[in-house]
């Protein structure tokens, strides 16, 4: 689960991680009071969306930059007015962009130098890793590719946690000296504490900055959490912003369905994540494009299958549906019943290809055949994918 920068900064504050003072609001009327709560000087106006590249982004009305530096209160309010409820397109949002619904005002910082700092779970070592670089404010992937020697890592034993010497080691490698090295080490240490205690997937500070008065602070904050651990973090669940999620994906999550909206016109309903991905791949191989990823799980009920159909059909792009089930735990007759129930409940008017294999397959096929619903059945995954791609191509 992702959260906004201003929410991450609230967590930073709790964990004693220094960052510029800021205030966020979703209401135009509060712009003034937000800015007044900050110390006099420059104001940074920041669009809050769950996507990177905001600074270089463009709004759909042509306004440039989702992060702006204002010299006065009036200018800051003007920028904020241009951003709020406007749609920001960045390299990470896709062409549709995201509507900005919250503005975050922060004090301008006296930047001496920019650094990169992140903590994430490293898959290869199955342990948390602290990643830092002297090259901040730029894409870390680019740094890794072009100047890997400027990236420093510290692997953490999850049982004993980050040790003080490791945090100091990173600070010295980044070139900090004296008291400032201590300040940097403390920031890293506190950031790890937050990462671990909140079950974060990743915390990224890009840039972390040094200031001319000898301080070190987090200028930006990007934090995401392990969805599997949210059950033990009620306070973090409160940060969830449904405006940032596809309504179809929100609906799917209510029924414990794994759904991801895609750009194509062939919907698919599959059991199992790997097979669901493979089904998207084979649709593509046959010349079509999947409208979604949908894994109904290992033990879906007829109710879940009906919900899945409703979600699929609420996507106006969908011109055909492929159901691909390899029944293991899930029995084919249960899926067949779900398909029949759903077809009745949602007045199915799109071509439907069904491929069933596995437990109780004959019973499932028989139920579908006797249901009176117009279904094209298929014997293999390849056969099914080719059939739905051909049907959709012929109809459009």
């Amino acid at each position, binding site marked *: 689960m992702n959260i906004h920068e201003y929410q991450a900064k609230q967590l930073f504050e709790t964990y004693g991680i220094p960052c510029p003072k800021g205030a966020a609001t979703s209401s135009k009327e509060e712009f003034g009071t937000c800015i007044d709560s900050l110390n006099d000087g420059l104001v940074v106006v920041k669009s809050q969306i769950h996507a990177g590249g905001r600074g270089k982004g463009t709004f759909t009305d042509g306004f440039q930059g989702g992060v702006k530096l204002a010299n006065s209160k009036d200018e800051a309010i003007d920028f904020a007015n241009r951003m709020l409820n406007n749609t920001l397109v960045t390299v990470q949002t896709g062409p549709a962009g995201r509507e900005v619904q919250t503005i975050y005002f922060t004090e301008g910082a006296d930047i001496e130098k920019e650094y990169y700092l992140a903590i994430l779970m490293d898959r290869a070592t*199955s342990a948390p890793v602290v990643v830092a670089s002297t090259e901040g404010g730029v894409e870390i992937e680019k740094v890794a590719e072009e100047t890997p020697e400027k990236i420093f890592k510290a692997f953490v034993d999850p049982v004993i946690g980050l040790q003080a010497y490791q945090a100091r080691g990173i600070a010295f490698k980044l070139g900090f000296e004296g008291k400032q090295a201590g300040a940097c080490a403390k920031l890293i240490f506190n950031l790890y504490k937050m990462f671990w205690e909140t079950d974060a997937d990743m915390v990224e500070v890009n840039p972390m900055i040094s200031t001319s008065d000898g301080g070190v602070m987090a200028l930006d904050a990007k934090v995401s959490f392990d969805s599997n651990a949210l059950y033990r973090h009620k306070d973090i669940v409160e940060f969830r912003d449904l405006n940032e999620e596809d309504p179809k994906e929100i609906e799917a999550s209510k029924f414990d369905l794994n759904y991801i909206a895609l750009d194509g016109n062939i919907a698919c309903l599959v*059991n199992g994540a790997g097979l669901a991905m493979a089904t998207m791949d084979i649709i593509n191989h046959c010349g079509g494009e999947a409208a979604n990823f949908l894994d109904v799980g290992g033990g879906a009920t007829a109710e879940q299958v009906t919900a899945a159909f409703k979600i699929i059909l609420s996507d106006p792009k969908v011109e055909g549906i492929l159901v691909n089930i390899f029944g293991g735990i899930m029995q084919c007759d249960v899926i067949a019943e779900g398909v029949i129930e759903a077809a009745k409940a949602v007045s199915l008017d799109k071509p439907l290809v069904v491929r069933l294999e596995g437990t109780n397959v004959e019973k499932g096929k028989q139920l579908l055949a006797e249901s009176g619903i117009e279904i094209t059945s298929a014997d*293999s995954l390849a056969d099914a994918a080719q059939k739905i791609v051909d049907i959709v191509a012929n109809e459009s």
Partner: protein
Amino acid sequence: MSVLVNKDTRVVFTGITGKSGGFHAKQCMEYGTQVVAGVTPGKGGLKFEDKVPVFNTVTGAVENEGANTACVFVPPPFAADSILECLDAGIELIIAITEGIPVKDMAIVKRKLLETNARLIGPNCPGVITPGECKIGIMPGYIHKPGTVGIVSRSGTLTYEAVWQVTCLGYGQSTCIGIGGDPINGTNHTDAIKLFNEDPDTEAIVMIGEIGGDAEEKASEYIKEHVKKPVAGFIAGTTAPPGRRMGHAGAIVSGGSGTADAKIAAMEDAGVVVAKTPSDMGAALLEAWGK
């Protein structure tokens, strides 16, 4: 012959009195697996299905019934604890089916694993089956057939797809290992390939991977270096959008790494015949095998 499990394997199910734990324990027993004990804290003394003794602790199951393998079915908040309990009780092989264990819990489990000789399969996996001898997990038994093909995969139903294709072509499986879809797992592709490579009765190998991480690339390096047996494979997620978790916690392309293309290239470089579509896994195996 086979790897990991066989007709002599003595299995304890943790979470045996739960709905899915009970259902699958029964299915495994019907398949012929020696389910010798169950564990549910507070329900010690009961009999599961009127014959399998239930214990309060895993140690109880080990001491009284000689369990040497565990199948973990407890819900995610308690699963890591159950795995650690199995380790402490001296269980040699732990197969964790549970999906949705917090990654932090697994990081700790993984560290503790290093202190023992035990092997963990999973979590978030369908389990392990040696056809005709022992099924531990949630896979449908009847699609399998005893034979000489070793299959390893991160995905459940995609494995069934591969197994079924192999079976329909007239070949059987030595052992099928579901290593699971989580970012931190106990056994990876390389570990499983090693087992198959050293097993005299496994003649050919099918390796099924998906986007995320670099386990398939690492396994390809191992194959290139050490494996003379024919290997076929498939990678799911060629069309998955970057930055999105595709159902499995570990199936995500992030920062340009973990792509299907990179994995396929590494596998092909190692001489693995990679199926173009999931429907061609069986055919890819025959091509690699020269059948």
